[in-house]
């Protein structure tokens, strides 16, 4: 799902009234900038031609009231630009006053994905579906380094910090799919910490919430989010720094353990292995490094995670990761 497939775009889509006003602000500012600079460029070029050494020209100078000139060319541009300071500050303050009826979406940033949770409990990874015509507040935090949730179509961004909640709010008025990014450099896969913001009508959003589970592949789809949020991939994804067995297609296979036994990786095995990985369940040829998740992963998440590992989705996902 690509917001656009063109190789060239020249103006970013604006999906809220604030975004449109920000565009006006920048356009008007550009006009002022041109007013202040074009005369300089023209003058320099003109003088360079007119007063070239050897050209006949009037080079006589009268008295120049330099103090007056200096003060006016400093003060007038400053006062003119102050208009834009005020305008910008006004928009900024509006973007800080969250309306009381805003719908609250939780966002978690971590290396290198976004997890969004809707007020009704559904969650999604990297993609975000939201209704238009309704103020939305995104309350966010980071699990590791500083990230920054950037929604260009709304002309809005905010840092996610590891030690406190931050927030941004907006009221979108145009449906469509737009990009969302992490804009604070956050390490190796910073540039893959992006996704799609889908803005839909309220009715479509309600329907989406109903079907969200199905669209994401049910339990297994949600399990993918769990897999991400507990960072299983840091060790188990192919190419991970720590050596751990690949989980692709593990379900149903025979596994050789360190003590020589051979067991089948059925659902019970997967569960036990996650909760209590080391004891007698260490796989042959691997070191005892996996943390025990007993009392860490709640039961419902564990169900989803196991469903994910059983699904063919896990296999596909794992193999797709280079």
């Amino acid at each position: 799902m690509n917001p656009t497939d063109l190789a060239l775009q020249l103006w970013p889509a604006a999906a809220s009234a604030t975004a449109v006003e920000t565009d006006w602000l920048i356009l008007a500012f550009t006009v002022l900038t041109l007013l202040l600079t074009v005369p300089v460029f023209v003058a320099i070029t003109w003088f360079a031609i007119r007063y070239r050494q050897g050209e006949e020209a009037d080079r006589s100078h009268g008295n120049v009231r330099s103090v007056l000139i200096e003060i006016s060319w400093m003060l007038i541009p400053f006062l003119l630009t102050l208009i834009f300071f005020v305008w910008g500050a006004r928009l900024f303050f509006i973007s800080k006053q969250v309306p009381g009826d805003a719908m609250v979406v939780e966002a978690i940033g971590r290396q290198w994905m976004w997890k969004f949770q809707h007020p009704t409990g559904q969650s999604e990874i990297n993609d975000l579906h939201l209704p238009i015509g309704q103020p939305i507040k995104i309350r966010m935090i980071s699990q590791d380094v500083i990230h920054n949730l950037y929604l260009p179509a709304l002309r809005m961004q905010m840092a996610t910090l590891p030690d406190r909640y931050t927030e941004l709010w907006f009221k979108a008025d145009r449906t469509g799919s737009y990009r969302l990014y992490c804009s604070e450099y956050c390490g190796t896969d910073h540039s893959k910490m992006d996704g799609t913001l889908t803005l839909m009508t309220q009715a479509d959003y309600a329907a989406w919430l109903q079907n969200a589970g199905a669209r994401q592949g049910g339990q297994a789809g949600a399990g993918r989010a769990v897999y991400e949020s507990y960072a299983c991939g840091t060790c188990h994804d192919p190419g991970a720094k720590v050596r751990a067995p690949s989980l692709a297609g593990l379900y149903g296979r025979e596994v050789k353990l360190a003590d020589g036994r051979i067991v089948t990786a059925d659902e019970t095995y997967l569960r036990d292995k996650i909760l209590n990985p080391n004891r007698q369940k260490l796989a042959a040829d691997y070191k005892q490094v996996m943390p025990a998740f007993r009392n860490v992963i709640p039961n419902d998440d564990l169900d989803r995670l196991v469903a994910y590992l059983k699904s063919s989705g896990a296999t596909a996902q794992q193999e797709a990761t280079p």
Partner: protein
Amino acid sequence: MNSGSMTSGTITDGPALRDPHTPDSRLGHGADYLHAEHTLRSWFFTTDHKRIALLYLASITAFFVIGAVTAGLVRLALVVPDGQVFTNDTYNKLFTIHGVVMVWFFLIPSIPATFGNFLIPLMIGARDLAFPKLNLASWYVFMTGAIFTLVSVVLGGVDTGWTFYTPLSTAFSNTWVVPALIGVTIVGFSSILTGLNFVVTIHTMRAPGMTWFRLPIFVWTHYATSLIFLLATPVITVALILLIAERAFHIGVFDPAYGGDPVLFQHLFWFYSHPAVYIMVLPGMGVISEIVPAFAQKKLFGYKFVAYAAIGLASVTFFVWGHHMFVNGQSDLASVAFSVLSFAVAVPSAVKVYNWTATIHKGSLKLDTPMLYAMGYIGLFVLGGLTGLYLATLAINQHVHATYFVVAHFHYIMVGGTVLAFLGGLHFWWPKITGRMYSEAWGRISAFLIFIGFNVTFFPQFILGYLGMPRRYHVYPPEFQFLNILSSAGSTILAVGYIFPMVYLVYSIWFGKRAPANPWDARGLEWTVASPPPAHNFLTEPQAPKIPYDYPIQARETGRQHS
């Protein structure tokens, strides 16, 4: 005092240092500084400010090449949107090296350590800097720091970005962060020593009659820069030491996992790094303020204003660091204050271009290479400065913060400003420094190529940023590809523009025409001595001019009333 103790130049023989014309008994009278001695030792242990300037020139040129090559690789990678050219980690290391080397090893020392070192004593009519040995020491400190950083790059690289934001740099990066930071910290000390040397020199070593308001603007801007070196650098030193302590010994300062505050690092970092912007910009303004009057044969317009502005900007720039953190969880009230203060500093810096324009008005213009660079500088600096205002506008910042808009903005200031001023100055003073003239035709061609190449490279990035392309992105959406290709194509033109001067300038050292003492008919004490200058700078007592910029064409500037 005798002349022997004068060359040793310690502070104890201060009074003798004021005497600029006592010849050194060990050297033939008038031997120029390049030929006074020939041994390697005479270069590596020299205390002559002019030779030290050349040591710096050679080192920062090498760093510039490293920075430029990594930039070229980054642009190469961005030709395709899917990030296939380099792995993610390699790409991250490349832009980190580019930033670290360009900011700390090229831009910050560039004009002060080379032209500042070479010219300040000549311009004020002094024998040397106040502390010649300290000056040499600062070059060694600089090189020591640089070697630490380069070693860490060779051993495995650093991937934190030149901004080293915590807790990525303290707890998450697996690269050679600590040695790189030690290097940057050490280099800071070299800035402090240079700043100290300049301040003391300008205060105590001016020739008789060289009052403050007879000093060239170049000296004024270096004085202001030195104050920033002295007052701001210790802050980044402390910040980096705390970062090292946290990374190496888990002393909690910035990482919330140890009870620290990650945003505190950004405050400390920008408290130095925004004023550092003026470490890069003010010396450039100084260079342009020398070139423009010389090639217009006219007195600099508004001399006193420009001088005061240098000091004013150097002071206010300490109070705007928060404009880097509008969307980083800083309090809203603080953001508004930082926004308006940024306007207050940006407008006066940008309107300096009106002074240069007014200087050209009714002058008698020669469009030689240094002047072409100066004119290019003026154009790019204005764009850089005014887009700084966009960034300082709160609502616009919420959109373009950390996008390619910022990248374009600071390159217009730093490449368009500092680097063009550096190259302009290099061409302006090259005859003085080497005693040789370079090829004027090649000079003009490269000035032109650099201007075109620069704009083709960086203008598209303003648009990319406004479209929402985040900076430091290795893989990017396909709709941004066209502008990225354009930018990369521009960078090849730019590269050619940089390579030419390296060739024809070096060529001129052996084959160039001999330069007269004053090839540009310029004013200023440095043009009253031979090219290259004698080892002792002045063979006779320098005569401070009655007014600065004593050019044939003068507008009589008056105050409020017509006389």
